[in-house]
């Protein structure tokens, strides 16, 4: 009981502490490059949150996620650099384009189940890469897109600088996590989880599979589009490599390490791995010798990632403390009190 109450108080506290750390990070960082790395980690984290909706909550392994990230980036890039739009209209357009394309890809690909869906979306991701690489009239092909606009600044705030952009990304990340939290606790989030548990069971509970899967898919591609657009606004130069399948697998790794189907997992996984990668930079490609076994161990022993393991541990701790507390208090327990305990 006490432990449960304690964890309740701890939870918002932990969130606030994380937010406070993120806010003061640019002042703690020893150079601008670190702020840049953190900002890009946040951008990827937003995309990973999107992947978490369709793959973590709804259980459909979407391998086109990196492709939608690139579509978001290219929509913003081409509209600002070639069509002369300013950042925010192009940003909205990027969200709309990835949502609409997500809907179209979703209604076709989600007719397939499990690994067939994964293979199909793998192909979709590769087609997106090929389109960006070969359709030179539109995308400039391998040359890429230059001179992408950053958002207009105000007062002393200039978004072409790293630190202001860091705070912009942070704001979007907070919104992304806030919405995810609300979604995952809602009936809609529970509907997605029911689909993950099994198509047939979900249908027997009166859940329309196609409608809910498409909704989850569109949400996830919109998240990817948002991340992609922010990425384009931050680096301001993009190429076909943004659609490389390797980014999708990176995001899956972040998700698995942090905790698939959890709320803080995508953030922990992304920020953690991005910084480990940074600090192992001196090993170059040999860093995979460390990463590979680490990932294998994690998947074997902690299949739900760091956050999943932590939540399970917390739950068992609470469960084992609750009966002990009950026994202690049994002398003075009144009916009313027991009710309170049951509701806790």
């Amino acid at each position, binding site marked *: 009981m006490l432990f449960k109450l304690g964890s309740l108080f701890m939870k918002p506290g932990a969130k606030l502490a994380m937010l406070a750390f993120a806010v003061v990070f640019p002042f703690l960082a020893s150079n601008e490059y670190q702020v840049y790395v953190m900002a890009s980690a946040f951008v990827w984290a937003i995309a990973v949150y999107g992947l978490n909706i369709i793959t973590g909550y709804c259980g459909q392994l979407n391998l086109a996620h990196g492709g939608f990230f690139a579509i978001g980036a290219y929509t913003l890039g081409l509209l600002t650099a070639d069509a002369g739009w300013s950042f925010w209209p192009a940003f909205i357009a990027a969200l709309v384009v990835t949502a609409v394309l997500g809907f179209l890809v979703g209604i076709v690909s989600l007719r397939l189940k499990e690994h067939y869906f994964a293979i199909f979306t793998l192909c979709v991701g590769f087609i997106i890469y090929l389109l960006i690489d070969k359709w030179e009239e539109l995308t400039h092909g391998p040359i890429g897109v230059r001179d992408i606009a950053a958002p207009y600044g105000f007062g002393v705030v200039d978004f072409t600088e790293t630190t202001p952009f860091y705070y912009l990304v942070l704001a979007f990340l907070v919104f992304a996590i806030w919405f995810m939290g609300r979604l995952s606790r809602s009936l809609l989030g529970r509907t997605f989880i029911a689909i993950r548990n099994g198509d047939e069971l979900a249908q*027997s509970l009166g859940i329309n599979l196609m409608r809910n899967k498409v909704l989850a898919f569109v949400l996830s591609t919109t998240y990817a589009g948002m991340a992609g657009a922010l990425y384009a606004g931050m680096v301001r130069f993009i190429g076909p490599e943004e659609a490389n399948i390797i980014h999708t697998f990176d995001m899956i790794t972040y998700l698995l390490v942090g905790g698939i189907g959890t709320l803080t997992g995508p953030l922990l996984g992304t920020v953690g791995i991005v910084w480990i990668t940074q600090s192992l930079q001196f090993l170059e490609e040999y860093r995979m010798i460390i990463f590979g076994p680490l990932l294998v161990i994690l998947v074997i022993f902690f299949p739900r990632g760091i956050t999943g393991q932590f939540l*399970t541990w917390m739950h068992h701790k609470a469960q084992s403390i609750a009966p002990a507390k009950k026994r202690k208090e049994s002398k003075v327990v009144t009916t009313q009190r027991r009710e309170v305990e049951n509701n806790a």
Partner: protein
Amino acid sequence: MLKVEHLTKMFGGLAAVNDVSVEFEAGKINAIIGPNGAGKSTFFNLISGMHQPTSGRILLDGEDVTRMPSDQVARLGVGRTFQTTNLFEQATVVDNLIVGHRLRTQSGLWDVLINSKRLQREEKAARDKAMEALDFVGLTHVAGQFIADITQEERKRVAFALALATDPKIVLLDEPAAGVNPEETEGFAALMRKMVDNGLTVCLIEHKMDMIMSLADKIMVLDHGEKIAEGTPEQVRNNPVVIEAYLGGEDDAAA
């Protein structure tokens, strides 16, 4: 209540269910028995809309539900359990059950975004329903435990509760007592009687003959997709065709 007319399901050239007509009365326990591969589960899948029949009609309270998708059939009041139920292992029992009432709610994406009154009201209703179903199957004491930490028998009861949370009129139970010991089997029989006493119609597939014979009001026997007998336990027990199907075939009927 549930009326099936000349129902046939072909898988390629094989008739999994062949010209079966039967009527299940409201407020009764109806059992479907038959050797393995007789088409019992296919029959359930046809009624619940999981499979579309090749021909024939299915009427629920007079309404034609033959070609309806399964989620719509569920909304009309057909609940079901499966031989195995995959649940979210690292979530509590009650958290797993809340979604059972989802089909009676309306909230969509917009309600989530603005955290609407409707969403709050519906979430409370769904949670109350989950607790009510849990109370019905006698599992209130494990409400806060993870699915991974409860026993096999409790899992089966949770599957019952999940079907009950959908507010069904009829529940289709696929081998509810498979893999549980005799004492627990008696517990499930009592639970099914309780469901009928509360106005539900029960329809079950089962291999445990002792249980069926003492529990069912009506038994339908399937063999090779065809209905070979129908009637009270007494009638079915003494039917020579049934005895032939069970003892004469190669299938292990008493499994």
